[in-house]
């Protein structure tokens, strides 16, 4: 599913070049559930931006679903983000002026789907994440947990193979966090969606079966959780 080879990213700052990522080799198979950890500045955000095709590597290669995306043009990357990847952010990132339904349907608009298809699929996904009947509310009328569910529905709407979640529970209380994490686990188990999740919290990372830890632009730990120790 994901294969990076010597993936590197440098930023040029006033104080000279900053090596955010120093040649990372990571392979993630289809259906894995991976937690990415590390202190700030460790390179994990840069890694996630690269995985999400939001940024281009300075060196190395990134194969996503069998295709090398490291050399793609912006519009090709936009299409990859649209069709293969779903994003879930810490701050939910819903569009405040659009209804819940329109927020969920938005990625399909950019995929060129018709009005009826968009509506039907968005309603189905809202049902799937437990928000049936909320479709015409505005995002700010919902609780944080509900907003994150809307964001998850939006991430799923184009049937992506990969979901990238950047601290999805960072703005939620622990009970809601666990609800959201259970939803992720369900999606991973039942639908085989590959999940890569950034988190600071150990109990959140414990939901994942594999853990990758970054430090100073390198992978310092890549471990599988021993079977049986389920959350």
């Amino acid at each position, binding site marked *: 599913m994901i294969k990076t080879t010597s993936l590197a990213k440098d930023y040029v700052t006033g104080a000279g070049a900053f090596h955010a990522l120093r040649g990372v080799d990571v392979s993630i198979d289809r259906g894995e559930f991976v937690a990415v950890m590390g202190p700030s500045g460790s390179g994990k955000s840069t890694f996630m931006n690269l995985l999400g095709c939001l940024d281009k590597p300075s060196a190395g290669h990134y194969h996503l679903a069998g295709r090398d995306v490291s050399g793609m043009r912006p519009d090709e990357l936009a299409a990859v983000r649209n069709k293969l990847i779903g994003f879930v952010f810490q701050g939910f990132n819903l*569009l405040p002026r659009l209804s819940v339904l329109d927020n969920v349907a938005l990625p399909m608009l950019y995929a060129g789907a018709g009005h009826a298809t968009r509506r039907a699929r968005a309603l189905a996904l809202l049902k799937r994440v437990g928000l049936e009947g909320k479709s015409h509310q505005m995002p700010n009328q919902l609780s944080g947990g509900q907003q994150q569910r809307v964001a998850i529905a939006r991430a799923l709407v184009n049937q992506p193979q990969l979901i990238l979640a950047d601290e999805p529970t960072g703005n939620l209380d622990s009970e809601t966090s666990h609800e959201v994490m259970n939803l992720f686990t369900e999606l991973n188990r039942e639908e085989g969606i590959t999940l890569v999740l950034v988190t600071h919290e150990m109990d959140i990372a414990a939901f994942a079966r594999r853990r990758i830890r970054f430090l100073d632009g390198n992978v310092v730990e890549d471990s599988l959780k021993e079977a049986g120790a389920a959350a």
Partner: protein
Amino acid sequence: MIFPSLVGSAFQALRANALRTFLTMLGMMIGVAAVILMLAIGEGAKAMVNQAIESMGSNLFIILSGASTSSGARVAVGSKPTLTYDDAQAIRRLPLVRDAAPVMPGSAQIVYGNINWSTSVFGVTPEYLTVRNWELESGGFFTESEVRSGARVAVIGRVVARELFGDEEPVGKIIRIKRSPFQVIGVLAEKGQSLDGRDQDDTVMVPLTSAQQKLFGSPFPGAVRFIMAQGESERVMDAAEESITSLLRMRHRIGKGEENDFTVRNLAASAQAQAMATNVMSYLLGAIAAVSLLVGGIGIMNIMLVSVTERTREIGIRMAIGARRSDILWQFLIEALTVSVMGCLIGMVLGVGGALLVEKLAGLTVVVSVSSLMMATGVALAVGLFFGFYPARRAAGLDPIEALRTQ
């Protein structure tokens, strides 16, 4: 199809800032209204001039006594009568001239019964009617022999007939012009205003000789104030003017290098010159239109730039979930176009309303044409596109990571 959704979301975004949107549209509205008003007044002036030229008679020259150029202490045009009845007869025989009529104008008090009316009285020949392209409403016109004999007959205009006779039939009645009795033999058809705003129907026509001898006694017998001549066609007007000039120079024995003692004026040409003066107003409106469209366009650009900055995060989110640069570009371009087209539509309503108001209050003829409405729409679209493009391109060029990071 993404397009209808883009228009929908443009309206949504604009409604979210209704006051700001309205203020942004203001420049556009004023500009478009001014364009419509300008074209309506310009077209109206053109129509009015054409109508006036038509009512005056086509291809007309007016030949006045005296020189037109006034170098030094030159005698003013028309002050000293140098033209005569015989000059007019000679001009009539020129090949490029269809007809010519000598005119002796004046004004007089006219009395019928106990009613009196002050009006202009023209001593003319029967050709005058042909040259001016004037019809009779009732009765007849005086003949060549009545002109020769100085008959006391008169043909009156519509306004004079109304003022003196009311519902009575004027033909056959006796009126007094400067105390002399004249018999009314005809009533002229209605003609309306002349180019200089005089009512052409407020007039009385009498035989030239009667005017010369009985009404406006002149120290120069046989002299006329001016001659109206009609060219054969519009094409030969310049040649006709030349032949009239050389004929009169010969008849007045004006030597080489000496100045004319008469002036030939092409009335259509001077009417057009007058129309140009009306155009000054529409040029002024045109300048207002251009400035407000420019300012309106800059206003749109300014607000769109603010909007792009305010919605950087939204742009980042849209990009993350798969919007291409062109999707973002179109989103903002359509928003700018929506503002300009809405402003344009309101401006059109204001412009047409203003035109009707001008017609009512200033009494100007206005013509609102479909082409002017189409032009205004075209201009609005062009302004929206031109001034919306830069902000839209800026939005489309944002880096998704940077944009997502913005609060």
